[in-house]
């Protein structure tokens, strides 16, 4: 029996969530007393590093271009799988339910811990936009887990790492006409630090200091909903209940009031800093650290202090 983990790669590169997926599978396999089989389209020379995170078998193959196509391929490669792990990336969010439908499996998405029991599999997941934690039991069919990136982190643990190649027919129902990915930018759902700003910044011309702060911290940038609605920032930066939900180690909220819908998408962050002129701003109730002050004065100082800190550490 094996825990099968799908390991996403981009242009033959793994992301942090890719290694975390293998760590997740290893942890589950240890509880279940079985091995880990990683499936990836990365080249064999590159894929062999997955053994450092606990893969016992590593199968490489050519994969379809879309999540639905990959999900359908995986459904044909399950073999003696006792469970399946997929990271909850944009692609993973398509692969996992596709696979669950085609294998008649039992799926938990938005999962935040590793299984506390393996027969049946029981895990926790975020529900009600971080206003609740649901404990769910995967009773009926192959258990499939899609976890929130950053939920458990990467752990090194050596696996046997036997390499093989797999064959499987590829088919996509979508033509991919164009893909544009901003290079050098940290993707929001996976970011360890998020710098986010709201209407308190007054206008799009003031985002220079936000980007600079993000740059110093190696952070992704985000914004409140009205900011993207007015067009100051792209929709893809909108976080909250109806935007992207994030769970970084550090979330810095600048000039954001802290409305319930905003908090619903960010309150799972491990540490929250709020910077706001209004001492009554609701964000201070959800934050760990706060500065009551004007962003236009505080942020340049913060950038300077962080530069000094980075230089010294």
């Amino acid at each position, binding site marked *: 029996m094996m825990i099968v983990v799908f390991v996403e790669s981009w242009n033959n590169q793994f992301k942090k969530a890719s290694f975390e997926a293998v760590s997740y599978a290893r942890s589950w396999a240890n509880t279940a007393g079985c091995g880990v089989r990683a499936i990836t389209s990365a080249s064999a020379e590159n894929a062999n590093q997955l053994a450092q995170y606990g893969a016992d078998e590593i199968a490489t193959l050519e994969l379809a271009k*879309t*999540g639905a196509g990959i999900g*359908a391929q995986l459904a044909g490669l399950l073999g003696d799988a006792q469970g399946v792990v997929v990271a909850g990336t*944009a692609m993973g969010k*398509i692969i*996992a*339910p*596709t696979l*669950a*439908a085609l294998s*008649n*499996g*039992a*799926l938990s*998405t*938005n999962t935040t811990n590793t299984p506390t029991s393996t027969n049946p599999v029981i895990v926790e997941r*975020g*529900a*009600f936009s971080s206003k*609740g*934690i*649901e*404990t*769910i*039991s*995967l*009773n*009926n069919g192959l258990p499939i887990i899609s976890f929130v990136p950053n939920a458990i982190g990467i752990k090194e643990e050596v696996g046997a790492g036997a390499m093989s190649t797999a064959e499987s027919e590829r088919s996509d*129902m*979508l*033509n991919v*006409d*164009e*893909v544009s990915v901003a290079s050098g*930018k940290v*993707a929001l*759902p996976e970011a360890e*630090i998020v710098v986010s700003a709201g209407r308190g910044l007054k206008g799009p011309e003031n985002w220079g200091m936000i980007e600079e702060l993000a740059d110093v911290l190696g952070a992704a940038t985000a914004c409140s909903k009205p900011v993207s609605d007015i067009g100051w920032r792209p*929709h*893809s930066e909108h976080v909250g*209940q*109806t935007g992207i939900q994030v769970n970084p*180690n*550090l979330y810095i909220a600048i000039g954001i009031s802290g409305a319930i*819908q905003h908090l619903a998408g960010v*309150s799972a962050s*491990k*540490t929250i800093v709020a910077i706001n002129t209004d001492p009554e701003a609701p964000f*201070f109730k959800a934050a*760990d*650290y706060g*500065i009551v*002050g*004007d962003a236009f004065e*505080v942020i340049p*100082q*913060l950038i300077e*202090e*962080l530069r000094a*800190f980075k230089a010294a550490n």
Partner: protein
Amino acid sequence: MNILVCISHVPDTTAKINFTADGSAFDPAGVQFVINPYDEFGLTKALHIKEAQGATITVLNVGGSETEPTLRKALAIGADQAIRINATPTDAITVAKSIKNHIQANAYDLIICGQESIDYNGQQVPAMVAAFLDLPFVNACVGLDINGGATAMAEIDGGHATYSCTLPMVVGGKKGLVEEKDLRIPNMRGIMTARTKPLTVEEGEGGGHTAAVSFARPAAKSAVKLVPADQVNELVRMLHEESKSI
């Protein structure tokens, strides 16, 4: 052109979420329910397509009779007819099977779902419906052009992708499909005509592959530590030494 818009019935975004005393379930007492915000974008997109090129819009929910006011609201906004599939929406795969059965018995050119329901945050139903029916699927869809086939723009990690496909297709949509300002609220005439539009009840699938064991609230935060605005260095120190965030 026949468009199906799948609508989930969810607590209002401002609702305080409570669980039953034994923690086994969500407690809907006192909670106002609304059309899932992601589905509002989908419904408005369907109206835009109807206005530009003609279409019949069917809205569908899998749930108990308590969801009918939400379907009536969708009719008041402009959908032509509503279907309620009478079943307890225990998990996504069960909901998706009911939706699949309905689609197989009716001919739709376009099936619009939301990317996610804001109650259980599944992000599962649309991909499952597409997989069951072997139809093209675009998730996180932020732009859609129907032109005999379809061209769809989607958010992917770190950027965007543009896809094209034949119809029928399934979309998991979000803001961008239409803009916030395009969203419509029902007017008096819409509310009056909604009363006479058909709302048909069909029977759905039972069962379920997963089960909620219990629910809890996230641990409460301790009080915020305020740092004076002229001691930003102190914040940097705390983030390094106390919270180990940097």
